[in-house]
């Protein structure tokens, strides 16, 4: 992976004004992955969108890490189910039109 796709945790936390412990906790709960490059802990750019979502759940809605873990997994299921609904609706329409 190219280093341009990574950002140090320290830089990220300083930008958002959040404690580094929040990111490490997300990692402990396996909600995100931390990469260590030359002794610097980093996150991948692709994860930022997810971290922002987790930040909103935690800081705006006061949801603790255990709750976030549960909510996050349920949201993933919702997304998969919504995709499946679209696909099945199209399939149903196909047979209804027969």
């Amino acid at each position, binding site marked *: 992976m190219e280093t341009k796709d990574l950002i140090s945790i320290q830089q990220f936390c300083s930008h958002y*004004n959040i404690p580094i412990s929040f990111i490490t906790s997300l990692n402990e709960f396996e909600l995100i992955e931390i990469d260590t490059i030359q002794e610097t802990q980093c996150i991948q750019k692709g994860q930022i969108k997810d971290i*922002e979502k987790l930040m909103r759940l935690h800081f705006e809605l006061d949801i603790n890490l255990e709750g976030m873990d549960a909510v996050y997994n349920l949201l993933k299921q919702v997304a998969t189910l919504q995709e499946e609904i679209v696909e099945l*609706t*199209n399939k149903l329409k196909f047979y209804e039109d027969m």
Partner: protein
Amino acid sequence: MSFIDYYKILGITKNATDKDVKKAYRKLARKYHPDLNPNDKTAEKKFKEINEANEVLSNPENRKKYDHYGKDWEHAEEFEKAKQQQQYHRSSQQRPSGGYADGDFSDFFESMFGGASSGARGANVKFRGQDYNAELHLNLEDVYTTHKQTLTVNGKKIRLTIPAGVKNGQVIKIKGHGGRGINGGPNGDLHIKFSISNHTQFKRNKDNLYLNVDLDLYKAVLGGEITVDTFDGKVKLKIKPETQHGIKVKLKGKGFPVYKKTGQFGDLYITYQIKIPTNLTDKEKELFRELAKLR
């Protein structure tokens, strides 16, 4: 402009304490937050109302003005000053809010890696604007070829390229056409959901098309040639002798274009529907009887 009862929205009374406001907001936000209600427009609308109510009632200055001026509270000159100060204060603390719809890059990434203006941090954190959702109704014929269409979203004209093969219910993202960014942050995205109606004789399932073709009895028995409509013109097909009712033939590459794969197409499946002749003459009946005797 009709009066909005922020107390009613949060389900609290006028003499609610700051703690009551916060508690009511948190409770409702957990219920209607767009992160927890993906693709739910009703929840999104409700959340905006709750947020607005909280913006007003959780700030003592705002609340005082609201209680005093009612619906015109925002126009109070003094309030505007206070609001400006408050916005400055909030910008140094707030975290991304409203950028809840999915995007390829976050506002943070845009400001850090986008190269445009990465200097501002801390007191002037940039946040991506709100994402907008829209629905576009098209006919199946419209999405057989890639074409451009001009849409008006929130008063702004957007020239959009609609790729061939887009599916019913599919959502595409138009980057930067959502709400304006905060503190010079990138704009939100526009999410367009396609609603595709099919009024053609073809049925579509993913990239494949299906068509029923009537075949007269004699051609089915003896074989021959027919002309069949496909989505991009007519084709001639040979009918094998003794073709059975309901038999399917596949015309490779005559289906629907594959989304974002130029030159690739699904297949067209033709089902033969053999039509038995009606209103037979006496002579015809007689000949059929003779045929039957031969079996």
